[in-house]
């Protein structure tokens, strides 16, 4: 614009465009530049703005409530009437409070729901227009509070309409500033007022009152608005803090409406159950509380809802993996100023590990308590001074005291003074060294005065600094055991005495028996000798005289002679046996090799009578043993005689003597042998396994052998099979090289 128009030019254009010149411009008329500026703004932002006229007037009238000068308020209120609004509707618009932030949110939601209709400006008086108006007022009046709303409106309206809206609001504010700068401008001079005001006031007298009082009213409204805003901000901050807190703490946190519907859960709950918030709402706890815990939980919760009482309960919650974990649930009612419950606030704390540790601890404690209390032993603790600090109930059965009766006493209080002195000396040394001790025997007095022998074992208990805190241990009642031991000892002594007596009796009986058998054999021997002697004498006399030729006589005499011989052998055997029983052994080391050689020579000499019987002896190393040489000679003579006798049908007869690795001496023949089932008769006096026709004998030889071996403390046994020969084994005490008797 190269040339500036005059005020008259501008006035003429206003007259042309509006049909009148509002007094609004009067203060600018003196300066064409200001005038032009004001008019151009009015023209561009208002007159030519493509927003609908009704919307522009509504927004303009409403925003003018906040102007200190009534000019704009009244002029634009009047403009609404020609656009079709009733006076009451105008009053209603002006009296309505601005939308709160939550209401604005609702309006934005409505606009967003019909975003596709916003390509054109909404129909006048439609709900969308109302929402758009509320949001427009909001962004015009609020600063940061309206940030989100501005962004959202711009998105919904598109940049162009939004810019039109914003420039319109800015123009309205410019007008307000202009009018507040020129309060002398009278609205009465305005054409719109002159045309409409009296009608409006007549239709709705409330408008007049409103115009008169609007400043106070708006001031109050602003104050309330600000207050609510501040409250909201505070609430939001508090909510934010609450959220932060609930998300930061390790507990599950939830809130519920007074009737018990969940309206908030923290992330921890969502994670635990692996559900979304929407899934959580209206979804019962019943499904995840352990069936055993559910009835009590429901009862508690219902009681809380009914009475408003806070509660605390332990229960198991099943997590997304299906595992039940113990939780401690707490809920508190949140009350407002009037004491009404506005919310329930609850937490669930996972106490599973603690619960398990507690259970384990309890189990362990139960186990030890059971052990301690069911043990037949008495378990105790003493402090560093030996004073009982614990006694298990078993003390009552052992000493007759109740546990609490000995607390404060020492073990020595339960003993006689002498015993206490003795045990205290021992214990002092143990305690000084902080040593454990085991089975310390001590004698105590039962409450009834009887004597109780205890066996005490203990372990030191040390303080963290290593000093002695006391002892813990066990007392066992060994009174009965001690008595039993004493009885056993006495029994043993008695038994030994009885064994000695009985042995003496047996020895005496044995000697009597031996003496008897000696005497009998001795007395039998004499008449036998006479029979034998006189039969022989008779034979000789008969032969000398030749008085008989009857061969029967000689035969009968022969039988008598042989029988007396035989009886003599039996009696001699008996005598030998009885003599052996009474004879004192004279034991020296005896080298068996020469002894056996002598026995063999003797046997060979006797066997030499039978000329065609070949006899082979094989003797390997034999030991030197402790024994009576004469008797051992008899043993080997008898055994060798036996072997020769029973192997005389073998050709050649082989007799082997030697020593087994285990030290047993054996003598083996290849003779007739015997059946093992008769082996037990082998060594019995006068026991024979063969008939006189097969093998003559008295049956006394092996009895003698066994008797001698037994008297030497040895053993003898035999193995055989009929026709396979026999082997006799015997053990004798070998000479110990370290034995002084055997050394020489």
């Amino acid at each position, binding site marked *: 614009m190269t040339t500036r128009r005059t005020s008259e030019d501008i006035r003429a254009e206003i007259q042309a465009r509006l049909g009148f010149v509002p007094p609004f411009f009067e203060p600018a008329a003196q300066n064409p530049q200001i005038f032009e500026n004001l008019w151009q703004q009015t023209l561009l932002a208002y007159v030519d703005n493509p927003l609908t006229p009704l919307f522009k007037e509504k927004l303009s009238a409403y925003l003018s409530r906040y102007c200190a000068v009534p000019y704009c308020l009244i002029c634009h209120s009047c403009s609404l009437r020609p656009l079709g609004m009733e006076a009451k509707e105008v009053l209603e618009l002006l009296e309505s409070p601005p939308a709160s932030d939550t209401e604005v949110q609702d309006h934005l939601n409505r606009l967003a729901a019909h975003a596709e209709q916003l390509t054109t400006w909404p129909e006048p008086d439609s709900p969308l227009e109302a929402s758009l108006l509320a949001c427009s007022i909001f962004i015009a009046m609020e600063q940061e509070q309206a940030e989100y709303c501005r962004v959202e409106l711009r998105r919904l309206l598109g940049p162009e309409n939004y810019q039109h809206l914003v420039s319109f609001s800015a123009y309205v504010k410019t007008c307000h500033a202009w009018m507040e700068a020129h309060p002398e401008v009278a609205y009465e001079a305005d054409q719109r007022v002159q045309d409409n005001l009296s009608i409006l006031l007549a239709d709705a007298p409330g408008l007049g009152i409103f115009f008169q009082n609007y400043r106070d009213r708006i001031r109050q409204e602003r104050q309330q608005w600000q207050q609510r805003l501040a409250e909201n901000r505070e609430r939001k901050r508090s909510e934010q803090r609450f959220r932060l807190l609930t998300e930061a703490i390790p507990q599950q946190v939830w809130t519920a409406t007074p009737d018990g519907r969940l309206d908030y859960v923290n992330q921890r709950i969502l994670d635990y159950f692996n559900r979304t918030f929407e899934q959580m709402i209206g979804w019962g706890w019943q499904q995840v509380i352990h069936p055993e815990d559910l009835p009590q939980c429901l009862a508690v919760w219902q009681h809380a809802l009914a009475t408003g009482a806070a509660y605390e309960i332990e229960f198991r919650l099943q997590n997304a993996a299906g595992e039940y974990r113990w939780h401690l649930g707490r809920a508190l009612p949140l009350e407002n100023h009037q004491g009404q419950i506005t919310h329930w606030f609850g937490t669930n704390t996972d106490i599973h590990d603690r619960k398990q540790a507690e259970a384990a601890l309890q189990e362990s404690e139960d186990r030890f308590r059971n052990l301690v209390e069911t043990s037949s032993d008495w378990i105790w603790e003493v402090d560093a001074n030996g004073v009982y600090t614990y006694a298990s109930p078993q003390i009552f059965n052992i000493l007759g005291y109740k546990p609490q009766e000995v607390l404060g006493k020492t073990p020595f209080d339960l003993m006689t003074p002498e015993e206490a002195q003795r045990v205290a000396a021992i214990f002092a040394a143990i305690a000084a060294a902080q040593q454990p001790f085991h089975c310390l025997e001590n004698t105590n007095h039962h409450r009834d005065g009887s004597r109780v022998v205890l066996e005490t074992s203990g372990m030191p208990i040390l303080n963290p600094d290593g000093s002695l805190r006391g002892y813990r241990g066990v007392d066992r009642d060994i009174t009965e055991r001690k008595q039993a031991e004493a009885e056993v000892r006495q029994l043993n002594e008695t038994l030994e005495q009885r064994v000695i007596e009985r042995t003496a009796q047996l020895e005496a009986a044995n000697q009597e028996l031996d003496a008897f058998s*000696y005497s009998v054999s*001795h007395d039998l*021997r*004499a*008449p*036998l*000798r*006479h029979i*034998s*002697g*006189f*039969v*022989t*004498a008779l034979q000789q006399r008969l032969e000398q005289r030749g008085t008989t030729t009857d061969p029967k006589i000689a035969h009968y005499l022969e039988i008598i002679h042989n029988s*007396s*011989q035989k009886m*003599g052998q039996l009696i*001699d055997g008996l*005598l030998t046996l009885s*003599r052996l029983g009474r*004879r004192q052994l004279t034991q020296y080391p005896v080298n068996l090799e020469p002894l056996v050689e002598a026995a063999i020579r003797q046997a060979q000499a006797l066997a030499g009578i039978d000329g065609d019987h070949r006899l082979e002896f094989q003797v390997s190393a034999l030991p030197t043993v402790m024994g009576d040489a004469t008797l051992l000679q008899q043993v080997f003579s008898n055994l060798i005689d036996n072997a020769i006798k029973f192997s005389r049908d073998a050709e050649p007869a082989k007799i082997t003597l030697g020593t087994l690795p285990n030290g047993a001496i054996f003598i083996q023949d290849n003779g007739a042998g015997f059946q093992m089932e008769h082996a037990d008769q082998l060594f019995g006096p006068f026991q024979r396994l063969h008939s006189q026709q097969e093998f003559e004998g008295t049956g006394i030889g092996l009895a003698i052998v066994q008797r001698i071996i037994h008297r030497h403390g040895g053993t003898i046994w035999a193995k055989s099979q009929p026709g396979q020969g026999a082997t006799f084994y015997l053990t004798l005490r070998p000479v110990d090289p370290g034995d002084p008797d055997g050394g020489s």
Partner: protein
Amino acid sequence: MEVEPARILLVEDDPNDVELIQLALEPYNFVQQIAVVWDGEQALHYLLGGPQALPPNPLPQLVLLDLKLPKLSGIRVLQQLRNHPRTCNLVVVVMTSSQEDKDLNSCYDLGVNSYIVKPLDFQQFLEIARQVGLYWMALNKPPLAPLPS
């Protein structure tokens, strides 16, 4: 009192044994006479006399003494003989059925000259009787007789 040669005193209570011994010694001429007493008291009387009386006979060359005797046992007889100066060196041979160690030891302790166990077999008995008689009566040089008191 001089020793009468070739006389034997047989101290034996069993007449059968006496007869057997006589029978055994009968064929040998070194025995002139066999005196027999039946118990220990008689034996002591024969050899030592009584409290008031001198011995009725001179000492025999050999005493065959049984141990099992009525009244006074052979051992006691031997003991008294050895304790008496008249008979302390007298040849005494015990002929007995006993093979007891105790008897054997006691006799040797008391200084018996020989200890013979009577064999059962008659032939052996004859042989032993003959040998004993021959040895002690013919071969053995008896101790000198004590001087008359």
